[in-house]
């Protein structure tokens, strides 16, 4: 098994898009990472009020777990925190050293893996990863991407097969690879170890503890094993 400590020796690569401030890995590593503060979040879909009055903070090096019965709005809250959905009330602020980031900068520092997200079935695992890394503006060498996939437990033979033929467990690993490929500062995971076997879950736990030192992690789950990771737990009412 290749050493999974690749994330420790972070790649020194510049964020490749003209971003204000210059968000580069070098500055990130040294200083306190990205914080996500959300206050009094509410969301209404037509008549139904799904969330109201949700407040909390995700800090680097900590794992924030969000639990709650089905339909309590866990995934909606995650979409709001990721910046994909606009809350009806309340605010979400992404702070890097006290400076608020714009949405385009924020997306580059964010890794998301959720059940309602898919990768391209007609492409192979490697092609998917190449696409998602290049479209983020990173020209990562092919060997590194293969290394990423192998770190997540995919056999070399699987790398070039179309993802459509993958089992749900392997698909989940490709989605996790896509969320981690650009070395994000904040990880938003919605039931990350769904479809994963125990080895996969172990691997995920190890990856998270290793990354959690520098990276804020938000996990929405009801799986007790995952709730155990949480430094702080946010319970959503039904």
């Amino acid at each position: 098994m290749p050493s999974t400590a690749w994330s420790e020796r972070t790649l020194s690569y510049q964020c490749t898009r003209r971003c204000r401030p210059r968000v580069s890995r070098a500055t990130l590593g040294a200083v306190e990472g990205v914080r996500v503060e959300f206050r009094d979040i509410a969301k209404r879909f037509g008549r139904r009020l799904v969330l109201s009055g949700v407040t909390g903070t995700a800090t680097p090096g900590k794992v924030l777990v969000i639990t709650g019965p089905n339909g309590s709005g866990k995934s909606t809250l995650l979409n709001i925190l990721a910046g994909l959905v606009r809350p009806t009330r309340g605010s979400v602020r992404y702070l890097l050293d006290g400076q608020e980031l714009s949405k385009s900068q924020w997306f580059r520092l964010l890794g998301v893996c959720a059940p309602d997200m898919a990768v391209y079935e007609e492409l192979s695992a490697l092609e998917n990863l190449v696409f998602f890394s290049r479209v983020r503006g990173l020209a990562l060498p092919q060997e590194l991407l293969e290394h990423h996939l192998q770190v997540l437990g995919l056999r070399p033979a699987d790398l070039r097969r179309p993802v459509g033929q993958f089992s749900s467990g392997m698909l989940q690993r490709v989605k996790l690879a896509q969320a981690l490929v650009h070395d994000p500062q904040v990880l938003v995971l919605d039931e990350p170890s769904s479809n994963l076997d125990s080895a996969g879950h172990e691997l995920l736990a190890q990856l998270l503890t290793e990354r959690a030192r520098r990276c804020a992690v938000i996990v929405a789950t009801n799986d007790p094993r995952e709730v155990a990771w949480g430094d702080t737990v946010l319970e959503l009412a039904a």
Partner: protein
Amino acid sequence: MTLEKLPGEIRSLSLLRESLTVLRKELVSELRSRVALSSVGLFALTTLIAVAYQIGPYRIHEQDRPHLHSALLWIILFFAASSGLPRVFVKEEDAHTAKTLRLAARPAAVFTGKLLFNLLLLLGLEAFLVPLFAVFMGFAVKNIGAFFLVLAAGGLGLAASSTTVAAIIARASGSSTLFVVLAVPLVLPMLVFLIQGTRMAATAADWTAALPALRAVLSLTGVTLVTSAFLFPVVWHD
């Protein structure tokens, strides 16, 4: 093999390259599944054969042919293309890959990539249909240069307006029929000028006769592209 030894100087990828990455992905996906290609090609072929069988080269008078032929050409082109043009966004929403793409790529790169794909689809359709149309319908063109100019401008114009409309309807339900309903009124003015330009290219000896129509089509395309540049991020990121 630990990471430090990896060469791979990380280069910054500009917007153009990200767009080309999106385009490359679209082409690879399309060439593997060939759904849009076959639906567009078959639609064009069946319509052409139905029309050519009924009207054919000899049933209409000599002087009426350019009028009728240029109108029929563009109608077949547009409606054949509209069976494939919206797929570029509808496919992403149906397969739930839109959320992953939203997080990974910049709206400008997504729009440009998809626009270029639609442009290639249209130009490919024109390359496929126009020769057949000329043979089956006995469509003689006096000025080939002007005709190709009109075809190219038409391809760009139709691609521009249909890409944005595709992005809009992809997020609405029942999107396949909705595309034609929404695209036709936007495209009609352009079709009027394209048909007029084609008629001029077919009848007039010198190519400047088609110039006014070309100018109108290109200005309409320019206006549509500029507006779409502002509107697409709003539609894409909701």
